[in-house]
Structures are given as structure tokens and as C-alpha cells.
């Protein structure tokens, strides 16, 4: 029995599961990364994902067009990010506290709107909404193994891959990205170089809001075609954890996000098998987050101690 489970971890289907799991975590990770690199902490990724997921569904339902729904989800994501920017930069509140506030009331607020729209408090299953499909890429599709990986994914997965590349180029190869990193590393230096630090940070927050909203909509518009209460279930936090482990390195960010996706995949395989208690198995990804965060902070502590890097 256990042997079966383990052998299933080495099948192509497991890789595909991991890829499916990875997309929302990758969205969450770049959402956390893009603000952190400009020197603001956006810990509201989780709640923006929730808002985005719901807004996408309700928007699609209201307009009857899934792309209009996506647009509405993006507007809500960017709007929430602007709210954070307004409270933290204009009114001087601590962005962490704003994040906590948003995260605390995200679930209740989304249920409130869900109830207004559907009269139900659990899911949006009663709404018949158009959904985003997957894309088959002719040619590539027929290549064995690779075809199954590269073709037939959800549209938002391709969007995610595309954004990963665009973001990398933007942050490391363009003046804008260099200014963003400068704001994150030494805001005073950026300011004296004539950079409008506030504007850059607002921009990074908006990007973060867009990424997080896409992550949320991946959950609601793609995989299961509905919004359900608590559906983000910590994916946003995994993105923040991945960003924490990455410590400014884009490669590490993607690696950590994929690692978390692998553990989510494992937990799904195990929970289907009923060998271990399901609740315990579901906790595996969160244990993984805890474990890798601990390891990464020990490593960075040792690096500072051994004098390899300057303490920030």
C-alpha cells in the first residue's frame, strides 16, 4: 500500500499535480517578492487572493464574460493594494498592521459579498459562471512527456510563466527594476539619486496586488469553477514564506515556491490513499513551510556570524 503511494510520486501525473499546485504559490511568491524588493512588506497577499478569487467569479457572473471577470478581479486586487499604499504611505500606518487587518476580515468580507450575490455562505456553486479553460498547443502537444507538461495547462498557468520571465527582466535588467531594488536596499540613497521612492513603492504594491489577484482567480476561475469559503487556505502565506527564504534572490524564490508545491502534491497523494489520518497529511505543506523557514533563518544566521555577509 505504502509502496504504491511512493511509486505514484515518481509518475508523470504527480509532476502534473505539482505544476498545478505551483501556479497559485508562484503568483503569491512574486506578489510578496515584488513589494519586498522595493522595501515595503505586503503581508496581505492572502487576503488579496481571496478578494481576487471572489471578484473574478462575481465579475464573470455579472458580465457573462470570463475575461471581464478577470479584469474586475485585477481591479479589485490593485484597488486593495492601493488601499494599503494609502493607509501606510499617506496616513503613516504600519503596513504590517494594515496587512493583519485585511487578512483578518478578508474571509468574513468575502462571505458577506458571496451572501449578497448568492444568498449562500459556503460556495458560489449556484452561480453559473463561464470559466477559463486550458490551452492545447498544437505541435508541442504530440511530443511525449514534454507535450503533457507544456501543453494543456490552464491559461493562467501560462500567464504565470510569462510573468515570471517578464518580472525577472524588469527587476534585473531595466532602470525601473534597478530603482525598485535601490528603494528596497537603501531608500535614502535612492531618494538622493532623485528617485521618487513613494511612487516606486506604490507601483510595486499595485503589481503585487495584480499578481495576488491572479493567484486567487487561478483558484476560482480555473480549477474548480467556483468560489468557496477559505479556499486560499494559506497559499498567500506560502508565497510570503517563499519570499522570506529567498532573501532577495529570484532563483531561490522560485525554488522555494516549487518546493512548497511539491509538498502540497505529496499531501494530496497521501490524502487520497487513506493510510495516514487526512488532517495530518493536509498539514504536511505547512510543516514544510515551518521547516524550510527555520532552516533558512539558521543558514542566514550562520552566514552573518561567519562574516560572509554584512548584517543589514
Amino acid at each position, binding site marked *: 500500500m505504502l509502496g504504491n503511494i511512493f511509486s505514484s510520486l515518481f509518475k508523470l501525473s504527480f509532476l502534473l499535480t505539482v505544476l498545478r499546485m505551483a501556479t497559485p504559490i508562484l503568483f503569491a511568491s512574486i506578489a510578496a517578492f515584488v513589494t519586498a524588493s522595493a522595501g515595503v512588506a505586503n503581508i496581505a497577499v492572502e487576503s488579496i487572493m481571496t478578494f481576487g478569487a471572489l471578484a473574478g467569479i462575481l465579475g464573470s457572473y455579472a458580465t457573462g464574460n470570463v475575461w471581464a471577470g478577470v479584469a474586475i478581479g485585477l481591479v479589485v486586487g490593485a484597488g486593495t493594494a492601493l488601499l494599503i499604499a494609502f493607509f501606510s504611505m499617506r496616513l503613516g500606518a504600519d503596513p504590517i498592521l494594515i496587512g493583519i487587518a485585511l487578512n483578518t476580515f478578508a474571509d468574513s468580507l468575502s462571505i458577506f459579498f458571496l451572501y449578497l450575490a448568492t444568498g449562500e455562505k459556503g460556495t458560489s456553486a449556484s452561480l453559473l459562471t463561464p470559466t477559463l479553460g486550458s490551452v492545447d498547443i498544437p505541435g508541442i502537444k504530440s511530443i511525449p512527456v514534454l507535450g503533457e507538461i507544456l501543453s494543456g495547462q490552464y491559461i493562467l498557468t501560462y500567464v504565470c510563466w510569462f510573468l515570471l520571465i517578464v518580472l525577472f527582466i524588469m527587476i534585473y535588467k531595466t532602470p525601473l527594476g534597478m530603482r525598485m531594488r535601490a528603494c528596497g*536596499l537603501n531608500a535614502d540613497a535612492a531618494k538622493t539619486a*532623485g528617485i521618487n521612492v513613494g511612487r516606486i513603492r506604490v507601483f510595486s504594491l499595485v503589481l503585487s496586488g495584480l499578481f495576488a489577484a491572479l493567484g486567487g482567480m487561478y483558484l476560482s476561475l480555473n480549477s474548480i469553477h467556483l468560489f468557496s469559503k477559505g479556499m486560499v487556505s494559506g497559499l498567500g502565506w506560502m508565497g510570503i514564506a517563499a519570499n522570506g527564504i529567498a532573501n532577495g534572490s529570484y532563483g531561490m524564490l522560485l525554488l522555494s515556491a516549487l518546493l512548497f508545491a511539491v509538498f502540497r502534491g505529496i499531501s494530496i497523494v497521501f490524502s487520497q490513499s487513506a493510510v495516514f489520518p487526512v488532517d495530518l497529511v493536509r498539514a504536511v505543506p505547512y510543516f514544510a513551510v515551518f521547516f524550510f523557514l527555520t532552516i533558512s533563518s539558521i543558514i542566514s544566521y550562520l552566514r552573518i*556570524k561567519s562574516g560572509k555577509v*554584512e548584517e543589514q
Partner: protein
Amino acid sequence: MAETILKLDKVTKVYPNGTVANRDINMEFEKGEIHSIVGENGAGKSTLMKMIFGIEAPSSGTITYKGQETHFASSMDAIKAGIGMVHQHFMLIPSFSIVDNIILGDEPKNGIFIDRKEAIRKTQEVSDKYNFELDVTAKVSTLSVAKRQKVEILKTLYREAELIILDEPTSVLTPQETEQLFVQLRSLQAQGHTILFISHKLEEVKKISDRISVIRNGVSKGTYRNDELTMEQLTNLIIGRDLENDLDEFKTNEDFHNEKALIVENLSMERNGKPALNNVSFAVKKGEILGIAGVEGNGQVDLVRCITGLEKIKYDGKIIINNTDTTGMNIKARRDLKMAYIPEDRMGDGTAGKLPISDNIISTYYTRDDVNSGMFMDSKAIDKISDDLIKTFAVKTSSNKTAVGSLSGGNIQKVVVAREYNTKPTFMIAEQPTHGIDIGSAEFVHHKLIEMRNAGAGILLVSADLNEVIDLSDRVIVMFDGEIAGYFPDANDINESNLGMYMLGAKKQTAEEIGGALND
């Protein structure tokens, strides 16, 4: 008459809370001159610079740059107009390369991308033009302080600055590095740049300037040609009275029978896997000031942390305070041996900025019977102690309930010194005791240290300010790379440039000579 590049006409700055930082300042700067602006801390130098550089707007008056009245909305406008500023605290990003630091905010582009080749070429070209001898692809974190400063100057030149403002540029440099900076500044001057040099080190101002402007209490005390001004006149203009400059006059020499307040024997320790202190031995006698000179980062901080117990570090060797071996003792136990400590970081380690003076002024002895009845603090006694000390130490404040953080640097330091003085120590560590404070307050602190010395306290003075070490100390040791590189039994016959050689590691004495630090 040379061409005027910058003219200030009745420039006044009043902050919203009513503080007048500058009043009716009239100054003219000529193209191609090195013009120093001197004044005590809080005299209004920085505010004036901020207005010239567009960081703040004047409340009234006009600033005319190159014949045109300017109203810079931000420093960006000033930079565009050809004004550059090198800030006292470097505005650099250590993990970026020199190039990236320099082009930041004004990047050469190739389509939407940064044109890195062009950036490197242009930066290297400017660097070579002014003989900076920098490899512009190097990371800033690998550079020495002096080189980082060069990068800052290069940054202004890259933006084609004609007028360069340098804010306390020598405060982080050794005498030799300062010499080099001056050579560099003269060469900039020769190429037509105008230099605005802000400093409180008067020797340097006298050395480098063509003309000098003095600010006192926000008011201009005039601009003078350097050669028509003596050092005494300059000092007088700055503080409004004559400075008693020979501190030795105030020293009395009672015999304390060669008793030792501090003995450090064979002290060695490692930090980050590298030796930070190597076999350091010396003693501080009662009734003397032992000065430690050295460039920052050569083990002084580690030494002080070992002696005070401020940081729990493993070390080899012995530290004996007032005849008691302190091995394993915490800070409180060491303070109970009548040790006092004036820390370098007066805001971080020295005071709690948001708390009132009265709390800060007893914070190292709040358990003492006279302020603490066991259960409650005796607020009446605390008020009395605070008021007395505020008076004795001439702390400028309206009440003892003022938050320490809202005082000026000099007054905060007076609160720290007053507190430590009031513990009646027999051994005191004074770490950079006058760093960044005005001449008046510094003079006051020096007198208090001498007063304690005369009363029999042994004082260990750690300072990056060579003049301070030489003027105040009885004996001097020089630290380089975690070791004692030189020992000078009489501070009166020290030659500053000779001392500099030891500070930079160019010279080192024999073990026997250095042994005098412990045994004399």
C-alpha cells in the same frame, strides 16, 4: 573679481514649530573656489545646505544660482542645475557595483534595458578623467571608507555637478586619507569646480579653504579670506568667545600610588571566525587618562565590549577592574565595581530617546538607595538630582521632563556624561565622548573628564578624533588590526603624522616598547 556662482540673499528658514534655523543669511560663492562653512552643531549649517540643495525651501529670501533666482522643488532640480552633494552618511547601496550606484536615477538606456556597457564606459571615463583610480565594476561593499567617499564624489561628477557640497567629509577619514581627499579637491578646483566644504574641524578648514563663512545660532557671522583669519579669531567667531585650548593647564597631578583602575592582560578574541583582538595588554592608572587612537574598526569596539560586558563574547585573557577579576561578570556586576561608561552610540546605548531627562539621568543607578526606596522610585529625589545635574552640566532644556531625544546632540551627550559622572566612578570608559557634538559642549565634556581624572578616576578614552586623544590623554596607545601597534608614554610629545603611520599599520613598535602600556 571672480564670477559669482551662488548667492544667498537674506535667506531665512523658520520651521513650522517656530524654530528659526537660519535668519537673514547673505553669502556669495565664487566660481572655482573652495569655500568652507563652519559653525557649531545646530548652528544652522545643515539647514542652509538643504535649502541650497533643494531639500527644503527657504521661508523667505532668495537663492541665486548662476545669475538666476532658483526655487528648487527637490534635490533632483538642484542636481539638474549642476549642484552635487556628498552626504556625511554615505548614500550608497553596498550590494550594488560602483557603476550601478553611480547611474542610479540617471541610467543610460538601450531600448527598455539598462545599457550596461555604456554605463561602465561612461563611469570609467569620468573616474579616469579625475584620477580616481577606481575599478567601477567592483561592488561597493568591498571598498574602504575612503574609496566609498570617492564613489560619492564621482556620483556628483557623473551628473556634471559644477558646485559640489561636501558635508563633514573628513569625519570618517584618517589623516593620510584626508590629505588625499584634499589633493583630489584641489584638482577638482583646478578643473573649474566650486567646492562647498562643511566641517567643524578647524585645522582642516584652515588648510583647504580659500574663503570661510561662519554661522552662529542661525546667523551669518561673515565671510573671510582664509589668509586674513587666525585660528583664534575663527574659534572666537564660531563660539562667540575664546576657547581655553590647553587642557593640560587644568590637570593636577596628585599621587595615586600607581594604583591601577583597569588591567587588561593578554586579551584575545575572535569575531566571525577572524581574530578581532590579539594579545592586547595595557593598564589604566588612577588619576590618568589613557587614550586609544586608531582608525575605526581596528578592534576598539571589541575591546570596549569586552571590558564593559556590553556583549557576551568569549575571550581569552584577563580584565581586572579596580583589583577584581571580572571574568564571568555581567554589566551590573562590573558597574558595581565603580565602572562607568560613556557609550559611542548615545541614542542607541546611551539613552532612551522617548523617556524624559529625569529617567535617563538615573538609568544606570536606579536601584541606588537615594532614588529607590525598595518598592517605589523616589520621584522627589530624582527630580532634585536631575535639576542639579542639568544645572551643573548646563543642559539646555526647559524641564527635566523633556524627552532626551528632542535635545540636540551636545545636550544629549551632557545628560549621558552627567549620569555617569554621578555614579562617582573610579574607572570610566569614554568612547567617542564628543563625536559629532558642538565645540562648546565638547569643551565642557573634556573639562568634566579632566575633573574626574584629577579626583582620581582612571579614564580610558577611545576616540577617532586624534586631536582629542592627544590633548586629553596622559598616555596614548594606538590600535591597528586588533593589536596595540604603538605606545606613547607622554601624550605631549606626539607627532600627529607619526601617530598616523601607526594607525595605518605602516609602523609597529617592538613588544618591549608596547609592554610599557601595561607596566609603566
